[in-house]
């Protein structure tokens, strides 16, 4: 494509258009990011204007901080299970919605009511995490009044005298939170994958059908490879979401900024916020921020590398 040539008079125009966005972006995004790196080498409390340079002490302390290491482990667990579960479910439903009603050599077509399913499935995506926190706080309530316990008691699977304390059970709490994320995300990725499936030309399916491929075979050998780009992008996005988790953990679990019971649902973001706003250890919190950034970047690069395949043009 051709671009408009730059002349002298344009310099003012270009600068004029860039100055405000750049100034805002530098002030509120880039500069704080850079400062975080700087502060992570100090013992800054946030309140006092003075602080000392302490080198890598924050980082060595982090490596010994049991709570932080536990949180890191939880993030890694989420990192594995959130993308895997969400993508598998989304692919499954996308296949059901799109190819389930396939007949003849018509390529990808939806089952009856596929538009309806997409509308319903996608809806959680427009709800804020704060709403999800309240909603699932009520669903996971530890007495008969909770939707889940109410159901299980109704079915006779749970003793009414001892309902399950979903969010207070050390071994359950993280998985309960994981399911909220999956519930929230499946619809979005379903729509994403459906869009990708529908952009696959019909003749590819016709060819597969002529070669005698069944539905499942078509999916694994034709559809999935053509969707690989979307799956890859999804994995990165979901991975970043799994590294965060702050809103759900801090609002749904016990303790200041969540993480309870006894740090069993702790994630890095909640430890960071507690150190910053509660313990007043700003420098230490900054070091955690840096660790989170490095992990996020490694994650993105590794995901993109590990899942790289021959790109199929169509």
């Amino acid at each position, binding site marked *: 494509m051709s671009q408009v040539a730059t002349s002298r008079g344009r310099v003012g125009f270009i600068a004029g258009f860039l100055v405000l966005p750049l100034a805002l972006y530098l002030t509120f995004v880039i500069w*704080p990011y850079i400062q975080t790196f700087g502060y992570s080498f100090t013992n800054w409390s946030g309140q006092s204007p003075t602080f000392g340079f302490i080198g890598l002490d924050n980082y060595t302390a982090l490596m010994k901080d049991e709570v932080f290491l536990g949180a890191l482990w939880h993030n890694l667990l989420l990192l594995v299970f959130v993308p895997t579960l969400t993508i598998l479910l989304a692919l499954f439903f996308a296949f059901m919605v799109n190819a*389930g009603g396939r007949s003849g050599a018509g390529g*990808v077509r939806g089952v*009856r009511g596929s538009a309806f399913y997409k509308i319903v499935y996608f809806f959680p995506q427009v709800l804020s995490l704060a709403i999800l926190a309240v909603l699932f706080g009520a669903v996971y309530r530890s007495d008969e009044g909770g939707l889940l316990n109410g159901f299980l008691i109704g079915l006779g699977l749970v003793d009414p005298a001892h309902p399950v304390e979903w969010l207070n059970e050390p071994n359950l709490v993280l998985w309960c939170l994981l399911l909220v994320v999956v519930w929230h995300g499946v619809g979005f990725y379903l729509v994403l994958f459906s*869009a990708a499936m529908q952009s696959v030309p019909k003749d590819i399916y016709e060819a597969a059908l002529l070669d005698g491929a069944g539905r499942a075979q078509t999916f694994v050998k034709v559809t999935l490879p053509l969707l690989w780009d979307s799956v890859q992008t999804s994995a990165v996005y979901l991975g970043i979401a799994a590294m965060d988790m702050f809103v759900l953990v801090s609002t749904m679990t016990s303790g200041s900024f969540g993480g309870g019971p006894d740090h069993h649902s702790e994630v890095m973001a909640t430890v960071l916020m507690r150190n910053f706003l509660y313990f007043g250890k700003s420098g230490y919190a900054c070091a955690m921020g840096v660790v989170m950034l490095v992990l996020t970047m490694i994650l993105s690069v590794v995901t993109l590398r590990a899942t790289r395949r021959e790109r199929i043009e169509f």
Partner: protein
Amino acid sequence: MTTVIKAPGEAGAQRSGGSGRRTGEGGGRRSDGTALNVFSHGFLAVWAILIVLPLFWLMLGSFKTDSQIGGSALGWPSNWHFDAFVRAWDKGIGDYFANTVIVMVFSVPLTMLLGSMAAYVLARYPFRGNRLIYYFFVSGAMFPVFLALVPLFFMVKRLDMLNSYQGLILVYVAYSMPFTVFFMHSFFRTLPTAVHEAAVIDGASDTRIFFQVMLPMAKPGLISVGIFNVLGQWNQYILPSVLMQPQSGSDPERYLLTQGLIQLQQQMGYETDLPVLFAGVTIAIIPMVVVYLSFQRQIQAGLTSATLK
């Protein structure tokens, strides 16, 4: 990357309509198709129920009394009073709602305007450092907000804008910049240059070309990224919860809706009035349902194409 935004929802709806009529046409394949249809509808219906049921149940809760909510989850409200909604509104949900709207009335248009301006210049005018500034903007999308949180708090504090609308508006605009620039950049690149050249020949200035020619042409892109920003900013929780705390006793509370709901939930530890909490959530959900159902095609298309860009 170079195609104009498609509307996948639209395509899907048309195709599914077609299949509805044609299912079972294929003679020998009929039984196979029917079995799969029953199978897939079964799974699809189960998940649909899993989505709708909790939401519906929660909304129902706003009509129950506190003891009913604590009693059994499966109970039906005994009478349909709207008391809880009134109490929720009095408890501040109305104010939180208003605060959120005030912030977004400014932040979203400002995001779109500044984002498109930067994206346009970067997409259409070659100059030294162009790529650098572009990557500079776009790289921000990679980093978690947490990384900046601590210094950001003190930056806003130094500007004396903690717990102020203007502070939050500026921060929202700044944090929406990476994605908006990224998306609009790729959009402006796809627009034909001929119209632009014609406008130049007609003697229009660069600024005028942008506002009167290019921006109207970029409308589909603006809608997509606009929806993305509206949802993103409406649902933002971390930034307001750090930046919108009253700074002194006399400082009025300016909570946003998400923040206010969490606040309500956390107060529930001391005084139990769950119907109010549920009513508050219902009040927060209803506008989303309305917006979603009226724009669901654009929202689905906008959000998913935005992710794939």
